[in-house]
């Protein structure tokens, strides 16, 4: 559980309340003048804040390190080692998973030792095993003020310093935004029902991006129609990879088999027809 601390502020507000605009404004993100990294902003899509000048995560971190803050650098490096990020130091930053890119961008920004670090919904991509140590690292580095916007506010229940965005800047008039009430039909039309399988079986699923480095190894499970499954795993464990295999975007290894109501199927041959997929960042699917 996260502990309350004064150098971390949770920016609260509904979607469309202007949290991102607030964070961009207070950190002068869109100013045309070059600043000296006094304030740093990280938006919801971490890959946009990777410099793009590094071929490895190690170089990306080095690029942001300020020599005069050696003790500061040490605490970040110790944190990265503790969460097991050190084995990713030789990886291309653009090929890391969403959570791994989040860690890299936040750690890089911390190495710049800014006075304010604004993080806009980026931490939502982290699981507790990485999020809690990261917040503890924020607590230890008190010279930085952290402004965090996050939709999962319940995970910050012990943070006493909360800023309600509507109290700061009510530029969005709530009355102007209306949502249609979408009611979900109780029963699906028969024509759709006919095409829905009752049971989906996955047998011996294995996958590797590189030879001899399996991401998923010999996984078997069943899925039933009408149930909601929660896929849990560490950042970089292969959750997105599994979803992409089920959707037919990635091709699993040869011994993998899929059965839909007992009938053998191949999602790779019919991408997007058996399983759909909603991206981690909606920005990536607006095509």
């Amino acid at each position, binding site marked *: 559980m996260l502990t309350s601390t004064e150098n971390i502020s949770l920016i609260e507000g509904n979607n469309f309340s202007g949290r991102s605009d607030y964070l961009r404004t207070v*950190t*002068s*993100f*869109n*100013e*045309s*003048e*070059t*600043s*000296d*990294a006094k*304030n*740093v*902003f990280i*938006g919801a*899509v971490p*890959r*946009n*804040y*990777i*410099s*793009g*000048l*590094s*071929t*490895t995560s190690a*170089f990306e971190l*080095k*690029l*942001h390190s*300020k020599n005069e803050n050696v003790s500061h650098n040490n605490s970040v490096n110790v944190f990265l080692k503790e969460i097991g990020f050190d084995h990713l130091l030789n990886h291309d930053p*653009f090929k890391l998973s969403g959570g791994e890119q989040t860690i890299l961008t936040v750690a890089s*920004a911390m190495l*710049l030792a800014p006075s304010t670090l604004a993080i806009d919904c980026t931490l939502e991509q982290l699981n507790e095993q990485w999020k809690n140590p990261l917040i503890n690292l924020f607590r230890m580095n008190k010279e930085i003020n952290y402004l965090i916007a996050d939709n999962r506010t319940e995970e910050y229940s012990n943070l006493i310093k909360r800023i309600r965005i509507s109290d700061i800047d009510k530029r969005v008039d709530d009355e102007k935004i209306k949502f249609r009430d979408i009611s979900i039909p109780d029963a699906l039309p028969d024509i759709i029902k006919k095409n829905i399988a009752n049971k989906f079986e996955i047998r011996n699923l294995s996958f590797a991006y590189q030879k001899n480095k399996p991401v998923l190894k010999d996984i078997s499970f069943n899925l039933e129609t009408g149930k909601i499954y929660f896929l849990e795993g560490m950042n970089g464990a292969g959750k997105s990879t599994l979803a*992409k295999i089920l*959707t*037919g*975007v990635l091709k699993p290894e040869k011994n993998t088999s899929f059965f839909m109501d007992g009938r053998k199927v191949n999602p790779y*041959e*019919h*991408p*997007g*027809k058996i399983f*759909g*997929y909603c*991206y981690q960042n909606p*920005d*990536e*699917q*607006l*095509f």
Partner: protein
Amino acid sequence: MRNAAGQSIHPVTRLVATIFAIASIFINHDLLLSCGAYLILFLLLLLNVKLLRSHVRFLLVVGLPFLAMFTLVYVVFLNNDPQGSFPDGFSFAAFVFLRLVLLTSVLQLFFFIPQNLLFATFSYYRLNGNLLYIWVGANVVWTDIASRSDQIITARYSRGLVANRNFLNRLKQLPYVIKPLLAGIFVTAFERSSSWKQKNILKHIEEMPRENFSFSFLRDILILLASVSWFTLSILTIS
């Protein structure tokens, strides 16, 4: 180009070799010289598996279809008639194809600079201020183009918008890719440039010790000699 030991081409060699090689491609009108130059460049490509792979992909997807198209036009439709200084249509088609692949090879080998050497290389050329931002930014865009295109195609696959993976279906995706690709690149470029400015990242790199220019003196000399020789021979073929 970087070899397995992490060595890179020296910025001066890179610039001189690119200029001489590109000039040679356009000056030269000798089919045999083009063949020889491509053979040498291909041997250099063999040293880097990643570059070789992308070059072979380019040959299969762009180069060879172009050769087939040119052959069809100049050999079949134009009766293999002489074209300019070339004795027959096929020689001309082969020459145009060679120009295309030579240019690609030169850009791959010399012009595209490894990301982590971008700043060091451009600052070696005495570029600074906004000009430096533009040059470095323009080079970083390639990485974004590759990953954005991949995202768009993946998103289309996962929504069942690409029926199957045959070549024709992939080709049909091109109009759907271009618009979001441009939009996506602009968004990312805008965010990244703001982030660079906020972090003052370029000044930061400027202060980093220059330890990346480890290069092979002998290899650089050979590259320079080869590019100058190619240029000289190209000049000689005109006369």
